[in-house]
């Protein structure tokens, strides 16, 4: 319990709770979960909205046509129209379905897509919970989705769903291995499982430079990490069920795969989960291999231990909030001091650095997102045996070689 509070403190929620207000622990925790969950939900919805439009537009341009351009200016309201259509669909449950599992499956899938955000950083300080085992946590909770999708495949009693679910299980379980091994390469070289520390490692001491800028990114550090990045990204493509590995939902073979029997809001859960999982894979690749929030736009120097929360607490203390004040006065004072902490001196610099960090990270993550879409509209779907061949006979041996090389590198130098 205490650990959980500590982690919430060290993350973005340090901001939300000056100790002066003396709120009870359960309230802080609940507020943290609710606000954090709401933020993640908003981000997921934004990702799904923006990238359904983006994907259709990019697909259009790749096929030398326009894509959706009729709803709103440049077709920008198309995802809204799609959403309205999706919500107004009838919610059907097949009569032969296992009702409980059928209902639970989309929620589990959604949860699996949502949970990694707890530890996935958006910038240096913009983390919901800065866990020491962040990387492990993200990789572990991404795998919850598999259970949900297996349930979605089994519960409706449809052959298409079942085939999709089984294919997905086979595919995801095998691609987790090279993905994990490539992450292990980074863990070995950086010596940490904390995503923040992995980025800090990438920001200093490479090629004989103290501030190597882009050269410090993991992919430029050695050929091994470059290969590991490629393997990680390909495995991530397979893990997020994207073409050319979209066998679980192959339209031309399985109708829609594991979500064939779902409609309306339940279907949109799967849909949002898919787009979010893609973002998670892209952001994780960016953090592990592309320097996360470090570079290409340089961030202003901020003292590493300065935090907005500490400054806020200090200000609140200076202004003597300890006395007998009403709740209203306390809140007003907290708000005023928060503004001071944010917009004066060091606070402003921290804000700027966070904004630049966010821009850097999103630039890389969205770049990778574009590559995913680009790949989808270029390569044809592979057969199930080719999927397995690629994973077990190509990616796995190469990632093992990378791992051994990294081991030697760490042991000798």
């Amino acid at each position, binding site marked *: 319990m205490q650990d959980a509070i500590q982690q919430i403190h060290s993350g973005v929620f340090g901001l939300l709770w000056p100790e002066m207000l003396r709120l009870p622990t359960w309230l802080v925790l609940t507020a943290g979960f609710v606000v954090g969950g709401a933020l993640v939900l908003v981000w997921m919805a934004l990702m799904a909205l923006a990238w359904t439009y983006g994907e259709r537009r*990019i697909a*259009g*341009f*790749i*096929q*030398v*046509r*326009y894509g959706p351009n009729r709803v709103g200016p440049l077709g920008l309201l198309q995802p809204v129209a799609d959403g309205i259509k999706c919500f107004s669909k009838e919610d059907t449950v097949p009569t032969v379905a296992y009702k409980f599992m059928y209902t639970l499956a989309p929620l589990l899938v959604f949860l699996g897509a949502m949970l990694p955000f707890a530890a996935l950083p958006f910038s240096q300080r913009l983390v919901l919970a800065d866990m020491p085992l962040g990387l492990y946590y993200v990789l572990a909770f991404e795998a919850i989705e598999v259970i949900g999708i297996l349930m979605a495949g089994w519960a409706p009693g449809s052959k298409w769903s079942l085939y999709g679910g089984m294919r997905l299980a086979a595919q995801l379980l095998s691609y987790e291995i090279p993905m994990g091994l490539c992450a292990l390469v980074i863990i070995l070289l950086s010596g940490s499982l904390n995503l923040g520390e992995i980025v800090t490692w990438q920001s200093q001491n490479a090629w004989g430079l103290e501030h190597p800028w882009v050269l410090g990114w993991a992919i430029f550090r050695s050929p091994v990490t470059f290969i590991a990045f490629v393997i990680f990204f390909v495995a991530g493509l397979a893990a997020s069920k994207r073409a050319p590995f979209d066998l679980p939902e192959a339209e031309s073979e399985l109708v829609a795969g594991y979500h064939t029997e779902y409609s309306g809001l339940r279907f949109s859960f799967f849909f949002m989960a898919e787009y979010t999982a893609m973002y998670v894979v892209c952001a994780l690749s960016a953090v592990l291999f592309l320097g996360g929030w470090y570079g290409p736009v340089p961030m202003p120097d901020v003292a590493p231990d300065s935090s907005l929360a500490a400054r806020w607490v200090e200000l609140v203390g200076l202004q003597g909030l300890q006395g007998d004040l009403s709740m209203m006065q306390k809140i007003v004072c907290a708000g005023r001091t928060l503004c001071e902490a944010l917009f004066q001196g060091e606070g402003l610099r921290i804000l700027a650095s966070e904004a630049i960090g966010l821009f850097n990270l999103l630039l890389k993550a969205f770049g990778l997102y574009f590559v995913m879409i*680009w*790949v989808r*509209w*270029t*390569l044809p779907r592979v057969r199930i045996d080719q999927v397995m061949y690629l994973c077990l*006979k*190509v990616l796995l041996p190469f990632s093992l070689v990378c791992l051994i090389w990294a081991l030697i590198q760490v042991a000798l130098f």
Partner: protein
Amino acid sequence: MSARTRNAFAEYFANLWAGIVTTCVGMRLTLRYFFSKPITMLYPEERPEVPAGFRGLHAYEESKCIACKMCVAACPVDCIAIEMVGRGKDALVTRYEIDYSRCLFCGLCVAACPTQCLWMTEVYDLSCTSRQACRRSFARAKTQDEIAAHERLMEQKEAEKKAQAAEAARKKAAEAKPQADKTE
């Protein structure tokens, strides 16, 4: 290491290399398409240029029409309907309809027209929402009075013609009688 295993090993790497190279080729191709201009025509705003000799919607000049029904006879699908009062240059066309749900735009009606009162334009967007709307009317709408007046006019002309004919016949008969008398 036998030759066979060495070949298998080399083949594995050759396959891998081919896979990477072909992927790159494909990716480069689609990226080039990504940056090329879409070839889609934004139809209602932009319109294609119609080629010369295009056969679209009909155009009809009522004043030239003699209601000879040559177009009706030429039409392979019987989609033209004509009603009129009178004949020839005096004809008043009360109905000239083409049913575009049946018309196949062959142009035979145009070729058959002796007075060039029917030709085809370049208008091609002829969608309609009901069967009735597919029947396009070309003749000017006539009032009941107009039709009645034209009918009276026609009757009058007919009567005049008859009278003239009778007059002529009588004259002919009158001329013929004396000759007949001579011969007798």
